[in-house]
């Protein structure tokens, strides 16, 4: 197994863990944690391809990962703001209990 395949396997495992967390937990914050783990697994893939790709001095994968980190930070801020507002409205962060479009 090449070093690149090792990193890709670790990234796939972290992605699957994040997906399992996002699909199985009831708490909305835990679902956001799962989504963050999936985004991080994608970043690991980008950095691994940058490191073992043919032209690392072009910095393509590195730039992609840096912008992806920035977008993930914005997503976390908006997502947690939404969770706080939903908790204020419904007094719960249980996703199984949220089954109405209009409160």
């Amino acid at each position, binding site marked *: *197994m*090449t*070093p*690149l*395949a*090792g990193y*890709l*396997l*670790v990234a*796939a*495992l*972290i*992605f*699957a*863990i994040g997906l*399992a*967390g996002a*699909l*199985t*937990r*009831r*708490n909305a*914050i*835990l679902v956001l*944690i*799962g989504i*963050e*783990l999936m985004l*991080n697994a994608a*970043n*690991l893939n980008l*950095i*691994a391809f*940058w*490191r*073992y790709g*043919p032209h*690392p*001095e072009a*910095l393509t994968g*590195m*730039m992609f990962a840096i*912008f992806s*980190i*920035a977008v*993930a*930070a*914005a997503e*976390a*801020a*908006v997502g947690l*703001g*939404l*969770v*706080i*507002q939903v*908790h*204020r409205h419904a007094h719960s962060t*249980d996703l*199984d209990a949220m089954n109405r479009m209009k409160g």
Partner: protein
Amino acid sequence: MSYAFLFISALTVAGGVAAVALKNTVHCALALTVAFAGLALLFLDLDAQFAGFAQILVYIGAVAILVVFAILLTRGSETPKDGVYSKRWPIGLVVAAAVFSVLGWAILQSVPALPQNAQTPAVTVAQIGQALMTRYVLPLEIIAILLTAALIGAVIVAMHEKEEVK
């Protein structure tokens, strides 16, 4: 496969599993921090120093703190009486296992199309700054606008609205 890689990836995967499987939400946030730190170490292991330190600053410094704030503001640390897992959790687990098996199969089956770059890429932070200011200046400006809009939006969404503001 170096021992450092095996150790760091085991730490990261253990942190990730704990972050999605523990019952207490605060413990989940702490395990998430461990997973983020492991990923930053993996970035450093891949000679991506800038991305590794950006990961530490953004994720451990900001996102993990934000998650802890959200947990405390929503009193999410109390374990609900009817379990922490959703009603249809076996389906989610099966979907995640299927995704991992497809990804792992694809990775292990594929052969590299290009020769793998074995030597360490010599990239300095100055080069990254140069690239951000020349070739990637438009994405940098767009991401600045996106971050500003997202943070203002987050504040407006989470703002406590008074009843019947006239």
